[in-house]
Every structure is written in structure tokens, then in C-alpha cells.
């Protein structure tokens, strides 16, 4: 009897996988119509989120963040450069997201994909005000810190924006800037890593992404769900619960209530995530 049971289970599993491959959309819809998702989550449930700081010793600040299967590493290299003439007291924060062909067959080798470019640009704008760039000044008009934050995706399974933003916040909190001095005679900047200071973030950012699949609003969509989503809404809150950013993408119009629902869930998410970060 046991033998029959297992073979029957195997047949069901086989039929399910075949169905998923052939009718991907219908496969997902069947779950959604039953008020559940293909990985067993509730609509408003985010995947398990893990944040580890200080994972790369060759970077001055680093973190690894996992949201479900999606894994990114963020490393910040601190270098010295000349400030811009218009802003002689301000340093630089340069953020780039790298989606290499290693993390998913969706991405090709060579130039960054559209998705990577959009993510890089959006995160760059989002963090423009999060860090007080004046604290990166070494000598006004002559030398400032330039922080290059590179977010490398190791494993891609949807919701790259949430993962990348969390990774960058964690890496910035992990960053230790050495005490630096400019020798005006030689123009050399010397730094002492034994006296390192932490960077003060103006605000910590807590992202939450929601996707609209048919008429269902799902939180933290994975790759399979993202492919079917008509719209996605990114809500970013800061630590005092104020809205830092809302970004609704996709051509499908959504109602006010949906946006409200997203913000409410994002507030809840921010509370839980602030404990793990």
C-alpha cells in the first residue's frame, strides 16, 4: 500500500509540475483564486528576510540580505576624490545595482539590463538625501570621501528593489570611515583606520513592494508572480513612519484604496523589518 501511495504522490507532483510549465498563468491563478499563493504564503505575507552586516572584509562597509530566495551582497568602498566645484563641502555616494547572468538566465552578459539601470538610478535618487554628504568632507574644496556602493545580486527571485535598498541601509550602517587628513603641502590624504567613525544616516529606509496580479494585491512578489503582475507599487518609509517614496509602475491604473492598502501594509512591514535590521 505504501508503495502505491508514494507513486500516486509522485504522479500528482509530476502532473503539477507539468501543469506549471505548460500553463504558467493558469497555474498561478488557481492558487490566487483560492486565496493563497504558489509558495503557500498569504497575500499580505512577505518572505523570510535575513540581514547580515560586515560580510566582506575587503570593503569598508558591507552586508548580505536575503528575502526568500533573492540574495544580494552590498559592499561599500571608500575612496578619496576632489569635490564638485558647485558643492565644495559634499562627498559622493554612488550606488549601482548589478544583475549578472549568474543570478538568473533572465540577464545577459555585458551591458547592464534595463532593470538594473532603473534600479540603480532609483536607489541613487532615493539615497541622495538619506546620507548627509557634508559629513564626507575631508578638506573643503580639496578632498572628500567618495563612497561607491555596489549591490551585486547573487540569486534572483523577484523583488530586487526591496532587497537592494535594505542591503544598502545595512551596509551604510556597517560602514566605518577612517580618520583622514589632507597634507596641504603634498596634497596627499592620509587615513588612520584605528580611529574610524560610523556614518550617521539621516533616516533609515524601510521598503515594501506590492504587485497587482489580476485583481489580487500580493506583497513581495517572487519572480514567477512578477512575470504576471500588471502593476507594482514600491512604498518606502523612514524610521519615523513618514513616507519617503512611492513608486507605482505599470500601465494598469489602480484605485486610491489599493494605494492606501499598500501604505498600511508597508507601515506594518517597516515595524517588523526594523527589528531585524
Amino acid at each position, binding site marked *: 500500500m505504501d508503495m502505491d501511495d508514494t507513486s500516486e504522490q509522485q504522479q500528482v507532483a509530476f502532473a503539477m*509540475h507539468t501543469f*506549471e*510549465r505548460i500553463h504558467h498563468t493558469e497555474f498561478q491563478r488557481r492558487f490566487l483564486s483560492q486565496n493563497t499563493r*504558489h*509558495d503557500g504564503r498569504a497575500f499580505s505575507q512577505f518572505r523570510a528576510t535575513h540581514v547580515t552586516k560586515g560580510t*566582506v*572584509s*575587503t*570593503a569598508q562597509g*558591507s552586508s548580505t540580505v536575503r528575502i526568500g*530566495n533573492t540574495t544580494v*551582497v552590498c*559592499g*561599500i*568602498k571608500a*575612496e*578619496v*576624490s*576632489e569635490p*564638485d566645484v558647485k558643492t565644495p563641502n559634499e562627498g*559622493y555616494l*554612488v*550606488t*549601482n545595482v*548589478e544583475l*549578472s*547572468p*549568474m*543570478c*538568473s*538566465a*533572465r540577464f545577459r*552578459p555585458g*551591458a*547592464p539590463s534595463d532593470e538594473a*539601470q532603473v534600479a*540603480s*538610478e532609483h536607489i*541613487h535618487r532615493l539615497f541622495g538625501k538619506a546620507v548627509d554628504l557634508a559629513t564626507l568632507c575631508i578638506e573643503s574644496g580639496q578632498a572628500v570621501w*567618495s563612497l*561607491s556602493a*555596489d549591490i*551585486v545580486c*547573487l*540569486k*534572483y*527571485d523577484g523583488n530586487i528593489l526591496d532587497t537592494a535598498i535594505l542591503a544598502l541601509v545595512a551596509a551604510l550602517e556597517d560602514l566605518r570611515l*577612517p580618520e*583622514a587628513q589632507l597634507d596641504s603641502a603634498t596634497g*596627499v*590624504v*592620509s*587615513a*588612520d*583606520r*584605528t580611529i574610524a567613525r560610523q556614518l550617521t544616516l539621516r533616516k533609515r529606509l524601510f521598503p515594501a513592494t506590492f504587485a497587482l496580479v489580476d485583481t489580487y494585491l500580493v506583497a513581495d512578489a517572487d*519572480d*514567477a508572480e512578477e512575470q504576471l503582475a500588471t502593476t507594482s507599487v514600491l512604498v518606502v518609509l523612514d524610521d519615523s513612519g513618514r513616507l519617503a517614496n512611492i513608486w507605482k509602475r505599470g500601465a494598469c491604473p489602480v484605485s486610491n484604496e489599493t494605494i492606501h492598502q499598500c501604505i498600511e501594509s508597508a507601515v506594518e512591514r517597516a515595524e517588523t523589518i526594523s527589528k531585524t535590521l
Partner: protein
Amino acid sequence: MSANIFDRRRVNGPPRSVEPLYTDEGDVKPFTNGGRADGRSLDQLRPIFIKTGPLAVQPTFSPTAPSGSAYYEQGKIRISCAVYGPRQGRKSNPRMGSFDCDFQYAPFSCSWKRRPHIKGADEKEIALILEQAMAPAIRLEAYPKACIDAFVTVIESDGKFATISAAINCISAALADAGIELYDIVAACSMSLNASQWVSDCNQAEEDVSQCSLFVSRMPSADEITYLLQQGKTMPDQTDRAVQTCSNSCARVYAVLSRYLQASMEQPAS
């Protein structure tokens, strides 16, 4: 070398940036009276950690997940590799499959200056080395018209030659995980010559002060060398000795790899 090439597809930083002069770098010598700074003996390798299948997407089927993957650590070196294929490729040889390798350092993976996004000549060279070191082990004739791609990302490096060797071991594990037919697992190990003594598996600080570095990749059961690269000056008999010692070290790496792979076959990952 100008590191910052303006690239409108990325967020660009200042046109020029340099590392500050670190004053806290005392003169800690990697070799002090015959011993190594990290306390290893001269022929001792750094501890190895392997995991196959870290990039497999669980629990459902994903058309974009790689067919095999591996994560490899050796001391501070950390490498992740994904293998796609056999799949349809641009090149199509009706008699043999092709094996392509793509190698990249993460921008923050080196202990010196940040690496630019644009791939450097050294990364392309290493990609070619990896391709040529691995290809003899793959039964390419079993995959006519198909393409096997390996993508390697270095998350953290510690010694150039040691990183190349680690990448070879990582690809080996990933190819095995993908179920690609292999003649043998390729195992690699590096060595550097310091004060006429050969030192195994050198880190960056040790490689920097060495007069010569080499690495050997081997298929131990067939007792065949697939790749051998030396940089720096030695006497021929010194190199002879190094290849011999490296081969023994490869056998040790091989033992670790095959023991892990065997265990992972018997006990599927949870």
C-alpha cells in the same frame, strides 16, 4: 590606468578617485623567521568550504534558475558559480558542445582600489584560463550543438593565483551539480616562491612579496595536468619540485571535493 570610464548606463561617481594613504599599515611581514603570519605550515592549505546548489530556486520550478551552482570558500576567498546548460547557444557545432566561461570580480572584492564595472583585461584572461583548465574534463562530444556556460563571481579575493585555483574548484563542483558528464573533477592549487622556499596557497600579502607564483589544475584520477601557469623567475628544478608539491595538494583538494559531492548525492539537500 584610468579606472573611471564614463558610462551612461550606470550611476557615475567623480571622474577620478584614489585610495587614501593608510598610516596604520605597520610593517607586518607575511613571513617572519620561516613561519607564516597566519600560523600555517608552508604546505598547509586554507580551510575549504563548499556548497552545491545554493542558486537552485526552491520549491517550485523556475525556467531561469541555473542547472547547477556552487559556492566555495577557501580562507577569505569567496566565490559563487552558476552553470547553465546544456542549452542552445549562438555557436553550434554539430559534433561537439562548447564550454564558455565568464569571470568577474565584484567591484568591492579586492583589498586595494575598487574595480571598475567595465571588465578588465585580467578578468578576460582569467575567464580564458578557466575555460581551458576545465574543458579537458568535460565530455563535450556528449553534447553536440549545445552550449554549457559557467558564470563565476568573486565576492572576495585573497591572492590572485589562489583565487584562480579556487574558481576552478568552484566550477568543478557546479558542473557536477548540473549533472554535466565529466571525465574527472578538476582540482587546483596555487603556490608561491619566497626565499627559495615554496609556500602553498598564498594569500594576497604573501603573493605580493613572493618572487614567483604558479598554479596547477589537475585531474587526479587520470593523473593529468589540465593547466599550469607560472609568473616570475625560477630555476627549472625549482619549478619541477613545485609542480610535484602542487599535485599532491591538488589531490588533497580533490579528496575534499569528492567527499563533499558524494555526501551531497547520498543525502539530498533539505
